[in-house]
């Protein structure tokens, strides 16, 4: 698992406020450009003062090095001594640096297909299995960062995601962000995770439709066809109707929608009926994803109420996919390992876990299907996974 956030020792702090900076290893970067860049220096590298002059910041991943041991840097501003965990940093990444607190966040990585931008930790739900537990703080700075970020991210980036918390907390500013993203990353597909409730306002859905983003999809969870059960899982009364209403409005205004169902003890009893409900009432949605549990955030607190070994529900999962497929709905299984699901659904099982939190068990080294398997969440490896993991024979 990659550490995307951390704290560093900072020498010669001088940035007035937290900054988004592009990461580069090129000591020969033209001087006129350097004020927008952070220079990445490997720990064993001796940088000359001329090479490091003019950069907004210097980043040195490596453990316990005092700045005087790096002679060329004694006059450099904003030298961040990062832990070993940050050795993944590479050319083209983008970091957020706070020289006052020493906080470092990697907000964009060039070498991954999974870049996700957190817009807020505020949310009007309290899902039993939330992997990003809500915080009631004004974190609008995250939104401001996002506006800046989409203007810095390379235009050949295939995909980015916007997550939270609940992104529509920002109302019209969220729509503006999508518009800005369209203008600055016209060839980048965008996935947004949202509970969709704000779109019960048809004018709000219309606003998003009018942006006419060329490749936008909203991932909206519906956890049960039983409104009581859905409301219970998200811990919010009235959620089911508003989410449903939001989905209808979004489709009326030409926005792509993916319905997400997370499978656990509470949603499993009506998983097939939920898929039938989607097939009968929401046949016009663009995709349906049945998802495995990430063992982080609230999931750990509620594990006893939630955990069920995927191997135990493999037939129900097959039946649910069978319903979706029979009705011609595009569908996927996310976050499951191939050895836990039946053969008949292997073709819809995606490698869906973001690379920075994607791991395998030692047992998987001898598995013939390891290359095509999505593997585990790091949190599954660490805390809870199926007892039925068995490698396929070579």
């Amino acid at each position: 698992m990659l550490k995307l956030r951390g704290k560093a020792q900072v020498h010669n702090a001088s940035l007035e406020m937290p900054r988004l900076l592009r990461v580069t290893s090129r000591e020969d970067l033209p001087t006129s450009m350097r004020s927008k860049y952070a220079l990445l220096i490997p720990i064993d590298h001796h940088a000359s003062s001329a090479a490091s002059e003019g950069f907004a910041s210097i980043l040195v991943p490596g453990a316990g090095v005092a700045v005087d041991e790096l002679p060329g840097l004694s006059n450099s501003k904003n030298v961040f001594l990062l832990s070993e965990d940050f050795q993944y940093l590479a050319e083209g990444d983008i970091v957020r640096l706070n020289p006052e607190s020493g906080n470092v966040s990697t907000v964009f990585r060039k070498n991954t297909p999974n870049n996700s931008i957190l817009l807020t930790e505020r949310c009007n739900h309290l899902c039993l299995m939330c992997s990003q537990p809500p915080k009631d703080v004004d974190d609008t700075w995250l939104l401001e960062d996002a506006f800046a970020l989409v203007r810095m991210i390379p235009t050949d980036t295939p995909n980015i995601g916007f997550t939270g918390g609940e992104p529509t907390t920002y109302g019209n500013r969220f729509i503006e962000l999508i518009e800005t993203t369209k203008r600055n990353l016209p060839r980048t597909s965008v996935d947004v995770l949202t509970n969709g409730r704000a779109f019960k306002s048809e004018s709000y859905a219309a606003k998003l439709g009018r942006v006419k983003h060329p490749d936008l999809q909203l991932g909206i969870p519906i956890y049960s066809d039983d409104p009581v059960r859905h409301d219970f899982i998200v811990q919010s009364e009235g959620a089911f109707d508003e989410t449903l209403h939001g989905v209808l409005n979004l489709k009326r205004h030409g926005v792509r929608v993916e319905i997400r169902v997370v499978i656990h003890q509470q949603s499993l009893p009506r998983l097939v009926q939920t898929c039938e409900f989607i097939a009968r009432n929401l046949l016009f949605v663009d995709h349906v994803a049945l998802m495995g549990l990430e063992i982080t955030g609230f999931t750990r607190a509620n594990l006893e109420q939630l955990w069920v070994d995927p191997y135990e529900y493999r037939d129900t999962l097959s039946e649910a996919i069978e319903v979706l497929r029979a009705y011609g709905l595009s569908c996927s299984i996310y976050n499951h390992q191939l050895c836990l699901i039946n053969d008949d659904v292997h073709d819809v099982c995606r490698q869906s876990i973001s690379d920075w939190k994607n791991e395998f068990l030692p047992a998987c080294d001898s598995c013939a299907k390891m290359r095509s398997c999505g593997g585990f969440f790091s949190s599954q490896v660490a805390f809870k996974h199926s007892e039925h993991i068995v490698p396929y024979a070579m």
Partner: protein
Amino acid sequence: MAIEESSDATTISVNVSPLVDKSPEGLVHLERRLRNEVLDQQLREQIRSQTEGVRNLILSHAFSKTGLIASAETPASL
């Protein structure tokens, strides 16, 4: 089956004779079926009157251009 309405239109008498099975069981069975049918028709009447309003609403909106639920306006941010 012979059906007679009383002169003041308050009572309907029904005389039923089965065409085939003239046994007592057959007659009881037939009577039960008739009673059930009458109860079912009463129920249909009741359902119809109870749901007429929402049925007309649904059908009129099915064939109109606008949606059914009035759009709720939310402020710029939640």
